[in-house]
């Protein structure tokens, strides 16, 4: 009766229990996998049912001994590339990865020009 309100949420699920190192690897992976029904959260940071399922998916794969890459590929195959929080490098996403370098070069050039011009 004390759990009146939560009885609704009762579920029977045998959770996968991993060793410490495996769990650390699983949690690192979870932090870079996006919860597809949430607002920009990773599955490590979400209470949504889908995040719970995806966490279980990751833990099971880790338990089966799959590599990070294999697990990522399996997720991408199911959900598309937006499931990963790190965008890939291809022709469409190139601006994302060029931007930091471009800003540095542009700004550095400006700074150097300011210094040189003023020395004269």
């Amino acid at each position, binding site marked *: 009766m004390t759990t009146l309100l939560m009885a609704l949420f009762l579920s029977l699920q045998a*959770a996968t229990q991993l060793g410490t190192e495996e769990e650390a690897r699983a949690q690192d992976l979870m932090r870079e996998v996006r919860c597809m029904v949430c607002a920009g959260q990773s599955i490590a940071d979400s209470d949504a049912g889908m995040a719970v399922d995806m966490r279980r998916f990751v833990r099971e794969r880790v338990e089966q001994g799959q590599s990070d890459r294999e697990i990522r590929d399996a997720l991408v195959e199911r959900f598309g590339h937006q499931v990963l*929080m790190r965008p890939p490098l291809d022709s469409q996403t190139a601006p994302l990865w060029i931007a930091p370098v471009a800003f540095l070069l542009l700004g550095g050039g400006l700074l150097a020009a300011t210094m040189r011009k003023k020395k004269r």
Partner: protein
Amino acid sequence: MIAELGRFLIALALAASFAQLVFAWKGASRGGSGGFAEAGRLAVVAVVVSAGTAFALLIVAFLQSDFSIAYVAGHSHIDKPLLYKVAAAWGGHEGSMLLWCLMLGLFGLAISRVGPADPALRLRAVSVQAILQLLFFSFLAFASNPFDRLLPAPVQGADLNPILQDPALAVHPPLLYVGYVGLSSAFAIAAAGLIEKTPGRALGAALRPFALAAWTALTAGIALGAWWAYYELGWGGWWFWDPVENASFMPWLLGAALIHSAIATEKRGAFPGWTVFLALLAFILSTLGAFLVRSGVLTSVHAFALDPERGVWILGMLASAAVGGFALFALRAGSLGEGEGFEPTSREAFIGANNLLLAASAGVVLVGTVYPLILDMSGGAAVSVGPPYFNATATPLMIAALVLLPLAPFLPWANGGARAGLAQMRAALLLLPVAIGGGVLIWMGAPVLAVIGGALGLWVLGGAAMDAVGALPAARTRALKFAVAGRALAHAGVGFIALGAAADASRPPELTRALVPGESLTHAGHTVTLEDVHRADGQNYLADRATLRLERGGILQPERRYYPAADQNTREVAIRTRLSGDFYAAIGEPRLQPDGRVGYEIRLAFHPMIWALGLGAFMIVLGGGCALYARAAGRVVQRRRVAGETAARGANS
């Protein structure tokens, strides 16, 4: 009645803003004195009084639970605790826009009272501020009026999002808005300076205190938000590189760049164009942040008020401010003049590098936040840009800034030369604790990022301490003392934040297990036993509260709450704070165990030295406060000196 009066007051504030624009403009053109100037100054007061009264009325409407007002009905509930009835006045879109407008008026008032010393420039800035007020008050009056009626009135309200019902979140938005909107005053002064053809050096001096005040408040606001995310979202994260966080982080980074470049501009006349450009850009990015958060183009854990139509309005205001500001800059940047030369080992050069790195970080955050939207809207690939991207791009830039930071205060202006060598010797001394700290971390098996962050944190802290020890005794006036203390405090705060972030990167993976009362669990050297779970309902929610006994003594009581009005679950974590770190416990869903008993998901996490983040933010805010005080004290001294000279001249003649 309240609603009608509120609408009238908003209209009045809009009209008064127009009067402020016209009168202050004419007053500025007549040298900043005379009848028009006086009328302009009065108009600002009228704006503040009208908007302030409207805001007070909105709070009264919340206290009365007047659900015939749509905004109140959407964000309140009879059973809600008093504090959150008041805080709901700025908890949603319309109310927070009213607060935004009120702040615009208040900063207009601040400019008119303590703004630039040159009266014409001051009044011109008041006039430019009025343009911004007009934009936002129109938006408030015509597209998001908090006093819009909802008829027939519902008997009960929809309640404020339960995760917002939190003391930290009650003060977080006002602080954040002081920061966002405060940058408008730097924008207004910069634009006014371009109109008045004020020399760059004077302009840098005029806008610096406003940028400093805004940036300090923004720091406090962001820190409160991060703290709230840490304990309220129930996952122990404090920074998610989430779009809404990024929206506040961009102006913060640019503000940080601005308060440094403005120093170089004021003291040496260096980077005049860049300083003015930054002042314009920082507020534009603030508005962009508002657009991203309010328009619904982004989804985020922090976004609580969405409406696509309003996005068009905000985009319009954004475009007006950006086009106006940058066109003015393009036309008049030449009048700012150029500074004197400097060497690569001078303080100017280091401030330049600081600005390069901070602005590049802001650029990366902007691209990472906006580019996926552009890609998506143009029919391109759907990609997610999250923490792994920002950690790979923006974080290295900020790390590079940390490397340079401690050296800058030791470097002389203009010609690096001989004294720079001395600075490098002192720097070498600093490397000792860095090497020891880094070594210890590596020995402890900490991850690479933690080692780098930890070593750099010590490096920055050591630099700040040496700066304080070296420069404080040499500072003769009170203003100088506070200026040095502010600098050292803020820099030390940055060091603590680096340490805290590094410690956080080395935290052990969290542990989640279903426990039946009576069972124990060990995590990070702490053993806890679940004693029982019982109901602990509050004024407007139902809750299950777990009692966890720590073997080392003490109990933790995390809760899982259900808010019926909003039909939402939240988690109240329990945290035990020690110098070594926070032991963090949360209760999740009940789980039926294979043996038929009911267990509860208990999540345990250990956050080593997480207090360093809070301390760091506090020191930065304190440092900002000191620097502002130094500024005010210096001004008083200057005024006295001018008054004294005038008096002496009077006596001589």
